[in-house]
């Protein structure tokens, strides 16, 4: 028998309940080198960022009528910046932000 500390437990085969909104077992936000930044006044809600994001990190806030970015999971691939039709999205260096990811503190 082996002892696996409680905080290190992984479900059998890593089969996890499908995330309804977020997957707490796999936070990927700290992979980022650049992050997308939105200028809301330029956005025409074409939804390209929502469609193209491989990790569903852009979502529509229907109350405010604007797209919202998820910093916890965005890996910084910048596909959204590329696909933005109105240049509302641009890239910015992660460490220029106060809450920027310090990549080497915990590499993964």
């Amino acid at each position, binding site marked *: 028998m082996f002892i696996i500390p409680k905080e290190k*437990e992984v479900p*059998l*085969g890593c*089969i*996890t309940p*499908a*995330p309804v909104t977020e*997957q707490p077992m*796999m936070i990927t936000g700290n992979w980022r080198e650049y992050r997308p930044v939105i200028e809301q006044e330029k956005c025409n809600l074409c939804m390209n960022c929502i469609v193209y994001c491989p990790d569903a990190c852009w979502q529509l806030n229907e109350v405010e009528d604007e797209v919202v970015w998820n910093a916890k999971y965005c890996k910084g691939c910048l596909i959204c910046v590329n696909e933005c039709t109105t240049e509302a999205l641009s890239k910015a260096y992660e460490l220029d932000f106060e809450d920027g990811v310090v990549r080497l503190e915990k590499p993964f």
Partner: protein
Amino acid sequence: MAKEMVLSGCAASAQAAKMAKVEVICSYPIRPYTALMMELAKMVANGELDAEFIYGEGEHAQLSVVLGASAAGARVLTGSSGVGVTYAFETYSPIAGGRVPVQMMIADRALDPPGDFGSEHTDAMSCRDQGWLMGWAENPQEAFDNCLINYRVGEDHRVLLPQFVCQDGYFVSHIPGKVLLPDQSQVDEFLPPYTLPHPLDPKHPVSHGPQIRPDQGTIMDLQRAQAHLDAPAVIKEAIADFNRIFGRDYSPFVEEYMTDDAEMAFFIMGAHTMTARHAIKHLRSKGVKIGLVKLRFLRPWPTQEVAEALSKFKAVGVVETSTSYGGAMRGGNLLHEVRASLYDLPQRPLTTSFMAGLGGEMVPLKDFYYMAEILSKMIKEGKTKKTVHWVGFEAEA
């Protein structure tokens, strides 16, 4: 009613899969295993078997298809041979790590050195460390039985591991032998319907095979290692049930033949065991005290059972039908594990290995006589001079 038929190993495996009510099959042709898919395709076409029959565009696709189907809760079967087995290599670890119990029938074929189609265990042996259950059939009857036994063990919730169910190409896969086909009711008693603890189900969504963090990797390796520690007890249960329901006399891990007063023994698995039995009969009539120990499960390796079985001999000759180039013994794979199993014994037999049956060559009686001679010489001299003998190519015995 149970009935006796004469079937090749491939046909026997197909019959077993049919009686196991396999639900999704994925094929891609490569000989010699293809005959399995030809049989199953016929069964599906004739309406004898209600299964999805999917044509993969290669072996990697085959394994990916059955992974998905098995994860969704279907009992599945795929298979391959030789370079087909290695083409799908990437998929083996995630299937075992994801704990999805797919079954793959491997009818061995030599890997290309280049372009050989004969039988050799190296194809399947190359995949032995990925976490799959694994074992060889000696004849079509065992090919039939092992299919059912592996479904039962692999799908058990205490195990949940995929299974390589291996048979020697041609020697088993294509040479017909007597197969006792049981009643469907016997199979149903032995093999419960397949269930997965967390199947893919739109009503209860789960993630299979997610990206994990490195610190979760060790835990998942540990889970797989634990499954192999837990499997032997489940194998014992399954074999006991199998013997009771089908009237067989299998031992779970190693089978012994004429070992009671034997001084030396062959350690062997697969098709050539049959020839070895006949060689032993002839040698016995000349007064040579020899027997054999046959391995039924390579994974999980039955360390204790191998040690117990082999400890009573003075010399053991491991018959290798696979290559481990540059390995510690300079020969095949089995001697490594045999020696490791014996290492902690206070009294160990002398051990050596014989490279035989490579590239699809037969291992005729005279080769076994030669091996017996070497073993006798080792006993007389009290030492192992060489750890590997390439049978038929040695300058001196």
